[in-house]
């Protein structure tokens, strides 16, 4: 191949890359435009900040899920784990399982927000680690282990809380869910920082590249000297950590930890990751994509609600757009490549 030819091909690859990562972004932009035309108040800063706050919970978990899916794994337990960690955080914050049922915190003798946060993320990470262990040691596929986890963690949550919610946290804890820094909601800021960190880890560290390698071909990664099992366990620890963090933010936002929190989140979270272009077969994907995927879902839900679309129709539209968004991405990629 001549140098000129090669050069042009390289250029092509770069543009291709750009466009490819723009696939879901283009779709997102189109959605925003459509909704704005339908109802201009859609792009009110307030509404946009609302959306960022809304996506931050599932978004945080989706960041962790990106690691998992990059290794060709999956975690179905995140919704239950969120509820579990939230309940743990509540117990720690309030110093007991008793629900004061008053939104004031007087009379409680908890350990404060920091202990609650710590408890949530540690428990999440540990739970993830245990699942990772079952996956690598017992050789049970991730789908099965985390499906089991889905039921187990829900049962544990209900057992802790005896079915009810635990509510009423102090203002310092609630700030993490409802506070603002300037005009920006705190959950959105937490999400943004977490996303940037995850991006750096995946793109610019050896660990991150090892995650991609394991997902690309676990056997080859092992033969190349990577400690595949450790890496696999680590991604479940990470997603557990993020489930814990999200649980803390959610509890702070709702001023309540509920036993039924997070039901069905696994599907929303996985959707966000997959819409963002991460392959369920592992090895391909990015944090940027996941953020766009989460935003796409958030904008879609908010926009439909904004236009008072009936909830039945909402389901139909969301399902179709999910498929279309991914189809568009595939199509774009196949176009760009040639």
């Amino acid at each position, binding site marked *: 191949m001549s140098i000129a030819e090669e050069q042009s091909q390289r250029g092509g690859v770069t543009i291709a890359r750009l466009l490819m990562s723009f696939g879901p972004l283009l779709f997102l932009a189109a959605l925003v435009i459509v909704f704005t035309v339908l*109802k201009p*108040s859609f792009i*009110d800063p*307030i*509404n946009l900040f*609302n959306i960022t*706050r*809304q996506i931050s*919970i599932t978004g945080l978990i989706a960041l962790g899920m990106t690691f998992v899916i990059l290794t060709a794994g999956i975690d179905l337990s995140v919704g239950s784990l969120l509820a579990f960690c939230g309940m743990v955080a509540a117990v720690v914050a309030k110093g007991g399982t008793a*629900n004061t*049922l*008053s*939104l*004031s915190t007087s009379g409680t003798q908890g350990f404060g927000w920091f202990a609650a946060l710590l408890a949530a993320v540690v428990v999440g990470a540990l739970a993830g680690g245990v699942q990772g262990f079952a996956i690598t040691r017992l050789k049970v596929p991730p789908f099965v282990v985390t499906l089991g986890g889905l039921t187990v963690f*829900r049962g544990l*949550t*209900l057992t802790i*809380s005896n*079915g*009810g*919610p635990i*509510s*009423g946290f102090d203002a310092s804890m*609630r700030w993490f*869910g*409802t506070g603002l820094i300037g005009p920006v909601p705190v959950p959105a800021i937490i999400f943004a920082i977490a996303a940037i960190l995850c991006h750096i880890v995946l793109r610019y560290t050896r660990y991150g590249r090892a995650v991609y390698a394991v997902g690309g071909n676990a056997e080859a990664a092992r033969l190349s000297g990577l400690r595949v099992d450790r890496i696999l366990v680590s991604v479940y620890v990470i997603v557990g950590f993020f489930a814990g963090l999200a649980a803390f933010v*959610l509890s702070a*936002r*709702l*001023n*309540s930890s*509920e*036993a*039924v*929190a997070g*039901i*069905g989140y696994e599907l929303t979270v996985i959707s966000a990751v997959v819409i963002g272009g991460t392959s369920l077969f592992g090895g391909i994907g990015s944090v940027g994509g996941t953020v766009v995927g989460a935003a796409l879902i958030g904008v879609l*839900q*908010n926009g439909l*609600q*904004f236009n*008072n679309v*009936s*909830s*039945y129709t*909402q389901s139909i539209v969301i399902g179709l757009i999910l498929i279309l968004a991914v189809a568009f991405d595939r199509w774009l990629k196949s176009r760009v490549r040639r």
Partner: protein
Amino acid sequence: EDKLTILGSVPSLGFPFFVHMLNEIKAEAQAQGVNLTESDGQNSATKQTADIEAALVQKVNAIVISPLDVNALAPAIEEAVKAGVPVVTIDRRVDGVQGILAHVGADNVKGGEAEAQAVVAAFPNGAKLFHLQGQPGAGPAIDRNKGVHNVLDPLKDKYQIVYEQTANFARAEALTVTEAGLAANGKPDAIICANDDMALGALEACAARNFSDVKIYGFDALPEALVAVRDGKLAGTVEQFPGKQSRTAVQIAVAYAKDKTEPKEKLVLLTPIVIGKDNLDKAERLSETK
């Protein structure tokens, strides 16, 4: 268009009870000549919260809401109150928030108590009972369960709940759960169910075993259950007047939104009753049955 707009939000349109509630809200809004923005919480506190936030951006004039969870929805409702939007809650009362315009409801705990009392009345000498609970952790499930136990726990000696399981508010699950219960414990005197769907499922299980004399109690007074009550298949169902609650709530909200008319009562509590064969006419949705 200077028509007023209100938000009508219910916990989940997956359940006929709330479908009815929203329909009534819709009908009353139309009658009052205001626009309605509908919201389905889809069984998720975050979804219902997000819906409220979206409505606030759109500057709705009032909010009528049946909160999925009284604690988890409190912050969102607080936000609405702060934004100066009048809020009327239906069915489930949010205690901690100051400034809610009014609450119209029939307490689920009271409903559960009424249901259990009906059983006590039907079996003055005690009874062997099954209890089918709702979705673990869900607000109504917790409250109804609490009501049932409030009444029956002090009477433990006479009224034994030999079999207590969740059937997640679902008919199919109630059927299998009851089948297992019948096989394990034999025929009970009565089955207390946390909603009508489960009662109808339990009914199928009993019918299959030809246990036609088991008294089955439901909750919600859905038309289908009313028919079964009429036909003597169900012993009773708890009526909480969701339609009346909804209409009253909309009236209060619209009146305030129009010209700041304060409601006569801040707290409208409808007492839940058990509909049996003899008082079918008290049922709100009797007209929907044939």
